[in-house]
């Protein structure tokens, strides 16, 4: 039994070290964000929370000039939410419709269209970034929500996911529905969408996180400060810090980091089971 106990202890020890490795940086970021700039500069990073939580977060969120020149933390929060939610919903709607057409209809261009959708896997934003920027600016969509969200939602991942799921739905359901007189649209709305509820929820969660965390595209798309998302704001505050000047406002940088991290982390934690299921299933 002795042996077994040592094994158990070492297992827990490894896991605890792992948890600390994963969590400590974020905790330190939070604890440090609750101290004053002077305190941080003098004493370095902090492991215990300080007394400046309210003043720092208040300034970051609500005071003009608190973090950026003009934009408030709340505005960036709002922009991030619009991007995250818009991206998630747009992606689910577009990919469900396309997957439905591809799986459930016999039509001449089905195969070529499937390959066009497949090709998006070969063309991540990073390899077409400059021409993409030109297209969006040519269409006058810079600094708009449409220009920010729409180009992101057409990639194949969601469509493949729903295609896979639809293929796993028994054929007999469609046959039964056809005998029951369901129209193509009726089958989609009455049977397929309710059937996919869990899958839709899982994809919404994953895509919210993916959308919220978008970096490169918003970075080149937004030129005005008022359109910054939190993730983009972070880059800006980094540059301000790097440029130096007066007393570096580290606590605000950390506060912004925490604000950018909190919503997606909460979503993942609250909907953990759906999220894991969706993530693991979608990659099959």
């Amino acid at each position, binding site marked *: 039994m002795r042996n077994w106990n040592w094994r158990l202890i070492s297992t827990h020890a490894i896991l605890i070290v*792992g948890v600390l490795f994963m969590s400590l940086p974020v905790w330190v970021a939070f604890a440090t964000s609750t101290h004053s700039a002077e305190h941080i*500069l003098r004493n370095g990073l902090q492991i215990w929370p300080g007394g400046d939580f309210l003043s720092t977060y208040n300034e970051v969120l609500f005071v003009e000039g608190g973090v950026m020149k003009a934009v408030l933390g709340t505005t960036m929060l709002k922009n991030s939410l619009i991007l995250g939610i818009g991206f998630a919903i747009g992606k689910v709607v577009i990919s469900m419709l396309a997957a439905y057409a591809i799986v459930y209809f016999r039509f001449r261009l089905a195969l070529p269209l499937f390959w066009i959708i497949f090709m998006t896997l070969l063309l991540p934003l990073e390899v*077409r970034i400059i021409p993409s920027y030109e297209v969006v600016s040519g269409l006058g969509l810079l600094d708009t929500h449409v220009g920010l969200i729409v180009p992101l939602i057409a990639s194949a991942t969601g469509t493949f996911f729903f295609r896979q799921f639809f293929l796993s739905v028994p054929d007999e359901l469609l046959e039964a529905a056809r005998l029951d007189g369901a129209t193509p649209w009726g089958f989609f709305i009455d049977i397929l969408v309710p059937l996919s509820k869990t899958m839709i929820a899982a994809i919404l969660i994953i895509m919210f996180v993916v959308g919220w965390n978008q970096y490169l595209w918003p970075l080149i798309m937004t030129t005005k400060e008022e359109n910054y998302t939190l993730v983009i704001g972070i880059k800006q505050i980094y540059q301000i810090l790097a440029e130096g000047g007066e007393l570096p406002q580290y606590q605000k940088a950390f506060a912004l980091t925490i604000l950018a991290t909190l919503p997606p982390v909460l979503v993942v934690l609250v909907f953990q089971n759906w999220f894991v299921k969706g993530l693991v299933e979608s990659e099959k």
Partner: protein
Amino acid sequence: MKRVQFEHSAIPYLFVAPQIVIIVIFFLWPAAQAIYQSFLLEDAWGLSSQFVWFRNYADTILSESWLQAAGFTLVFSTLVTFLSLSLALLLAVKANEVIRGASTYKTTLMWAYAIAPPVAGLMGNLMFNPLIGDLYKFFNAIGWDFNHKLDSFDAGFVVVLISVWKQVSVNFIFFLSGLQGIPKSVNEASMMDCRSPTRRFWTITFPLLAPTTFFLMVINITYAFFETFGIIDTTTRGAPGGATNTLVFKVFQDGFRGADLGGSSAQSVVLMLIVLALTVVQFRFIERKVHY
């Protein structure tokens, strides 16, 4: 495909139309542009351009800075893939073993998935800040003459560490679900056949995880190539002297900062080929998995 399908003329086209339209405008057209521009040479003011065949490719890809970036990308992605997979596998195996606190461990090990790479980058950047960063001070205190702003090894160390940290949780989720997918009876049979847990792991569990591992390798290489952009851009930005430039970061630098359209496009096309290769490998693998 389904055995029975609706036969309808217009409806399926209406359903796929939104996605196809967006793909054509924002994917295919820009990609075609990139390919086209990779064959053009613009003058310094962007007023005229001429068709130069593969000169851009020759100029950029044979240039010292591109080769340096390619070399770094190779080392970087190998390290990130190997380290984050090993760490995640270790944690997943341990988390799968414990009964008490299993769900707590699971939750606290996976939540970092939700953190954006640039956010992780900024956090890491501040940890390594020479003025306040404890990690920076710690490494110097233990006798390592650590300076990631000047020393390329140290800079590489920083981006690898942050990139690994960010990727462990995804790998952990997949490994854990892979481990939980191994039938209980197989584990029980192996317990009767083999006394040593370590040997059991390498002879039974690890081979059964092979499909997951292979799949994750592709995912991790893709991550190291592309998604680490946000980390590089918030930490070293290629410094010192381009030592931590990845290929993707270099495309962005040359295209946006350097305004070298032809060269940047040629690099993009090379990246497309790399993605193509990765995708082919992945699909080959999926085909194999079907026969498993």
